[in-house]
Every structure is written in C-alpha cells, then in structure tokens.
C-alpha cells in the first residue's frame, strides 16, 4: 500500500511539530544517559576515563563498606521518613476533609503548601535555625527548664529526618486529602446502616478505600527522599552519609566519574523496583 501525496505531506507536517522536542530529549537526555551507562562500565586512570569494559565499579560498590553503607543509610532514613510522614499526615488530611467547612478547605490546603514556596536550599537552612544547638527549639526548652543541656537535633540523622518529614507531611496530606474527598458518602451511610460504629467504619471502609492515596504519596516520598542531596547535606552532618552524598563525593575530590555513574544507576534501579512494587496502586489512581 503506498501512501498518497496528501498522506505523505501530512506525515511530514506531524514530524515537523514533534521533532524539536524529540531531538532535544534525544540529544540532551537519551545520549547523556546512554553515555553515563557506558561510563559506569569503564574505569578511571588518574583523571582520565578509560574505555575498558568491566563490572568493577558495581562490584566495588557492593564490596566496599564505605560506599555500600550510603545505600543502607539511605534506605533506613527513607523508611523512617515515609512511616512518620504517613502517620502524621493522615489525621491532618482527614481533619481538613471532614471537619473544615467546604469553603475553607482550599484555603487550608494553600496554607499547608505556602511555606514550601521558598527555595529548597533556604528551607533546609531554616531548619538549621530551628534545630541547631543555640536554635529556637533548644533555647525554648532550656528556658522552660525541660532540659538542662541542648539536644543534638541537627548534624545527625534526627536533623535529616525532621527536614524530610516537614516536606513529606505536606505532600502526603495532599494526596490523602484528594483521595478522601472523592469518597462517596454512600459508603459511610451503608456501613452505618449495617451497624458499624465510627471506628469500624473508618478501619474497614474508609482506610482501605484511601489506600491508593497513601500509596501514591508514599511512592513519591520514597523516590524524592532517596534521591535527595540537599537536606542530608545541610542537616545531616558528616558522620553518616546518604547515597547521593557519597555519589557527589566521588565527583568532587576524587573526580571518579565511572564510580559516580555506577552508583547513580544503582539508585535508579532501586527507584524502578519501588515503582514496580507500587504499580498496582499507582495505576488505580489514574482511573
């Protein structure tokens, strides 16, 4: 079957519209990505990258404790942050959806997002003002006489977790709220008709139905948290590095591109695994 002249002209036009975006993504995303994947299989001699194919970088990552520990720390922190954020965000989302009058709900949500409109770097710095030894929380607690010595709230894991939870509580409140507000009141009426009390209705009806919102938020939390460099770098101190920090270290003083590339791809593989694990819920959300 041969295309008519008209069809060929139409097809040329279609390509003319699509090509700029495709070329941009091809040149500045696909090619760099493929090159990076190749580099991760090459080695480094001094500051030069040598194109000899080997799995050494990946093997080194899993064998060398100081590199692999970054992944372990990242996973631990991400898990802690995700759980705390869900536990804190769910009641808030519920209160906004159920107890705040309809006309004020949008305002309540905008207020919840408002503080996140600073620069990300500035936000982590602000937490330093709150959590450092002479910071607001320690000064207040000392003044109240609750503690005798300032608490170590920053330059350690506590600082990183608080900084992360701050952002992800907001994010999860949004995804869970979106889910709660879509629930038809008929479900609750039916549960009440069948004799369920408020707690039973929540536990057996509302909670399972809002699980997609929780999972979408949890997935986003996982992905954004495990890939983040700024919050741990500013609030976490130097004793315990997360994977993105270890990657940046390879780049900085050591200029070890192949190692950094290999570790980035491991990070990406973990995110992909998380996506596959959550795909069931992420799909449900789309319909």
């Amino acid at each position, binding site marked *: 079957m041969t295309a008519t002249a008209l069809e060929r002209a139409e097809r040329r036009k*279609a390509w003319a519209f699509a090509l700029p975006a495709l070329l941009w*993504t091809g040149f500045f995303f696909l090619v*760099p990505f493929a090159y990076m994947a190749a580099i991760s299989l090459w080695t480094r001699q001094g500051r030069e990258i040598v194109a000899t194919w080997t799995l050494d970088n990946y093997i080194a990552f899993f064998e060398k404790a100081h590199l692999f520990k970054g992944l372990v720390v990242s996973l631990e922190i991400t898990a802690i942050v995700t759980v705390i954020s869900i536990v804190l965000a769910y009641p808030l989302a519920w209160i906004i959806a159920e107890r705040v009058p309809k006309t004020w709900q949008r305002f309540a949500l905008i207020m919840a997002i408002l503080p996140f*409109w600073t*620069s990300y770097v*500035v936000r982590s710095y602000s937490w330093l003002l*709150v959590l450092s030894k002479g910071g607001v929380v320690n000064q207040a607690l000392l003044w109240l006489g609750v503690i005798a010595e300032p608490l170590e709230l920053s330059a350690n894991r506590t600082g990183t977790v608080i900084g992360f939870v701050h952002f992800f509580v907001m994010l999860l409140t949004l995804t869970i709220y979106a889910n709660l507000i879509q629930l038809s009141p008929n479900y609750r009426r039916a549960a009440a008709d069948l004799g369920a009390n408020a707690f039973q209705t929540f536990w057996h009806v509302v909670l399972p139905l809002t699980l997609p919102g929780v999972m979408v938020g949890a997935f986003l939390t996982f992905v954004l948290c495990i890939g983040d460099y700024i919050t741990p770098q500013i609030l976490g101190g130097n004793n315990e590095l997360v994977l993105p920090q270890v990657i940046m270290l390879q780049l900085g003083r050591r200029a070890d591109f192949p190692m950094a590339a290999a570790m980035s791809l491991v990070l990406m593989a973990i995110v992909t695994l998380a996506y596959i694990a959550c795909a069931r819920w992420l799909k449900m959300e789309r319909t």
Partner: protein
Amino acid sequence: MRHLTTALAATYAGLLYLFIFLPVIVLVLFSFQDGTLPVPPLNGLTLRWYEAIFADGKLMAALGNSLIVAILSSAVACILGFLAAYAFARYTLPASGLLRGLIVAPMTVSTLIIGLGLLSVLNLTGMRLSLLTVGIGHVVINLPLCFAIIYASMGGHQVNIERAARDLGAKDWQVTLLVTAPMLAPSILAAFFLSVTFSWDEFIVAFLLSRFDVTLPVEIWSMLRSGLDPRTNAIGSVVFLVSVAFLIIMELAVFRKTGKSS
C-alpha cells in the same frame, strides 16, 4: 463527646500547622535580627541585612541569572512541549506511544542522573559550563511536564474549531498559532508558571552545570559555608516573598479562570 473530638482535631491541626510554618517564621523573624547570629534571643529589629544583600553584587547577579534561566528555559520547554503535544494530538505518528514515552522519560529519572549525564557529555565535547548549560538542563527537566500538561488539555472539542479556521482559509501555521495556542492558553500558562518555579528552585543541575555565573540557589548554597548568617535569612525571606507573590498571581490569573470555565 462531639466537642471533645473537635477540640482534639483543632489542637492536632494547629500543632501540625505550627510544625509546617515554624522554619519560615523563624527565617523571616531573624532576618531582622540586630546582631550577627540569627537565633534567639532577638536583640532588636533592623533592616541592615536587607541593605547588605541588596548591595551584594554577586548575590544580585545570581538573582538576575536565576530569573533569566527560569524564564527562558521555561519558554523553550513550553514551545517544544506545545508543538509536540500538537503533533501527537492531531496527527498519527508511527510508534507514537514509544515517542511520547521518550518525551516524558526525564520525569522518571532523578535530577542527579540528568545532571551527571549532561556533565559527562559536556566534558566530552569540551563545551564550557555556563548559564546556557544550566538552561539546557532545565529544559530537559521541564519539557516532560509542559508536554504532559498541554497534551492532556488538547481535547477533541477543539478540532472542529481548527477545521472551521482551515475552511475559512487559514494556513497551518495560522491555525496552530492563532487558533489552537490561544484556546490552550490557560494550560500553556500553567505549564509555564510551574516550570518557572521548578527552574527557579532547582539546585542539583544548576550546581553541576555552572561554573562562574551561578543561579541563586547555588549562590545561597555557597553562603551556607559561613554557617548561620542573618544575610542568608534576608535573601531567603526575599525569595519566599517573591515566590508567594508568584503563587498569588498564578492562583488569580490561571487557576481561577480554568476553574470557572470547566
């Protein structure tokens, strides 16, 4: 009982809102600190840290750089995204699912990987790191978003209007530019504003792909090396104010309008 749960709910929400607002309140409050440490006690109020940052040439240059990069890279991302969305919505391309997947692919990859990849290729080609390379990176990050937003709003109901325009003698470029683009203005604007805010705030790619001319987040980053400093509070408060102004404009100009028409 009812009163008790309401009181509990109000207390809980109040505490969480306090948690959410605490850092920004402290940031702004101690930007007026009359002293060199932006932590309690508050010695008095002064505007001298604001004077200091507005007199700081490097910081103001970084602010200008950030605005330029954000606006230009978002404009490019919107134009490319709009054209591609038009192609996929109005024509049938071979393997269109795969190609659409390619355009949104960067959204699924962390910015660290996008930055590292671009950096290694730029090293290879010997291209100098500059605001241009930062801008290229930001288009890569924002193009998927712009494409997705605009593509989602290209419904079938606009096709008839485009057909009418063609029947009345409009050329293809006239249809796209004078008929389709204005119809999609709300979603194009939303995409533009959203990518401006992302670019304005983006750190990793800007950090990896710049050298002498840097954007504001990178400049603030280097200010952090001097520890707690009221100047950082002041510039942070300015950024917050600009962003909130932006949010209000967006809320009024874009979302109100689309909310009403739908």
